């Protein structure tokens, strides 16, 4: 059964069809939410909320081919709401797993990654969403703008700001002297 058929069935009220839509997307949704919120517990809540909204509003999705883009948008909105609710759980974000990163200079890279972590935590959920969609999901600016329901220009400026913040976190001296980010 295709996504289109499943969407039609789910929009007709069939919960099993909706589960068949959600199940194969769950890991990616959860990973995206975890990266945006930096917290597994809150990511779970956001994914649940996004899927409930998807179920509730599925009949408004006129083009099933846009299902994934639509669900990304719902997820980002749910992450935004979750972020506003404040920190309700202890973070379970795992510590660095060094074996994941091949490197010629492990000590330098470890330090960079610590600073990168701090920079990511400093960003707002909206800015982290741009970073995650660009660097993790590999989306273009127009796709990011679609997912976040913002103009392309806003997506571009948020990406610019987020990158500058992260680069400053990693190398504050050079950023101050350069005064800009490529």
């Amino acid at each position, binding site marked *: *059964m295709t996504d289109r*058929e*499943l969407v*039609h*069935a*789910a*929009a*007709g*009220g*069939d919960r*099993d*069809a909706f589960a*068949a839509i*959600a*199940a*194969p997307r*769950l890991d*990616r949704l*959860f*990973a*995206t939410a*975890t990266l945006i919120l930096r917290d*597994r*517990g809150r990511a*779970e809540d956001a994914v*649940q909320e996004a899927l*409930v909204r998807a*179920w*509730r*509003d599925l*009949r*408004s999705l*006129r083009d099933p081919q846009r299902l*994934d883009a639509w669900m990304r948008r719902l997820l980002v909105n749910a992450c935004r709401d979750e972020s506003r609710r404040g920190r309700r759980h*202890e973070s*379970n*974000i*795992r*510590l660095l*797993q*060094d*074996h*994941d*990163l*091949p*490197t*010629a200079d*492990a000590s330098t890279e470890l330090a960079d*990654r610590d600073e*990168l*972590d701090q920079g990511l935590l400093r960003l707002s959920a909206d800015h982290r969403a741009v970073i995650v969609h660009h*660097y*993790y*999901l*590999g989306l*273009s600016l127009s796709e990011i703008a679609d997912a976040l329901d913002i103009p392309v220009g806003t997506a571009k400026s948020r990406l610019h700001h987020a*990158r500058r913040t*992260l*680069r400053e976190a*990693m190398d504050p001296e050079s950023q101050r002297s350069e005064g800009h980010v490529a």
Partner: protein
Amino acid sequence: MNPQDRFDDLLTRRLRTDAPAEAPSHLLGRTMERIDATPQGGRGWLTGPAGKLLAAAAVVILAVLVGTQLGDLVDRPIGDDPSLSPLVVPSDSSQPTATVAPSISTAPIASTAPSASPGTPEPTESPVAVDDLLLRVVSAGGGPIDPASLMPWATLMADGTMIWQPESRTAINGFMTRRLTPSGLAELREHIFGAGLLDVSATHELEPQPGVEPPGRGASLHTFTAGNGADQVVVTSVQWLGDDEESTYYQPDADREQLDAVAQQLRDPESLVEADAWTGPAEPYDASDYQLILTTYRDFSPSEHPDVSDVPIPFDEPLDEFGVESGDQRPPMTRCGVISRAEAAQIVDAVTAMGSAITNSVGLDRPTLASLNWAAGNGTVDMYLLPRMPDGFPACEDQP
């Protein structure tokens, strides 16, 4: 690599590393419970008979999804995972190949021969019948699972061939192999199976004590696969978290503790039997064939790494058409196939020549990992080359 490229590369890798590989297994169920109580809004635009027919078919799909995708998931918060190596150092590559090969080393080797048959599904025929497997131990979890993390800690074949990956917290060790004598095999079998914990399929989970909320943490899951075919036994068991943590938060489980001990001991099987239990010395494992996994990222900030076109991957078509689909089929795409030892050796040589900038593990006796540019796709590609065990594990369908 210029600073901008290095930044992009670092950020991309960091996000990939932090992203959990799986959603908690309870997430879909809990979501569906909420959905059961949530009415849909608006006016349906397909509620007629066709929709009802589609719904009936969807039940079947759901059953398959639950059975194949969700059934094996283990809900495990990510956190510190003591079973994972904290640091990987560049390997000295190309280990000498072993001559103590399984008895099947002269058998024909199945290969995808990708260049001759683009997109051909992976042949899963193994040079050794699956019923030669006595025991496989895979230990993974506690965080993102990559293809290399699913390589078995230990594989014991009925002919006495033992293959294991010695424990190391500083590097990805190569696999070793050694053949047991018949009496040595009997001795080891008694050690592994004597307690009866692997007689029937079972699942050993963490059971919190009443009224206690354990802290979030990572934990590995040991999967013991014993025997063959319809008689195959699969036992899964969460790692032993240490006496203090176990006694503070979880109900006693002597079986789980013992299974953890067996899994750990099999990383050093030579300590379990007498010195004369072996027919010869231990050697680096020389696989008959290798699993090649390519995760491709199209239109994705390339770095200054060498290009994948400099690696002799035996496939002429676009890399994202290699072999068969594997895992989640949304970007990034992962493709999987099996190549011969000779083809693998050429890849290992090429990656070795590229050096530690692109890899932290390379060799025919171990997982070879490489991160490369992919000019043809305007992106990057992560490559895993894994030596397969004599029973053909891992097959592409074993990968997440």
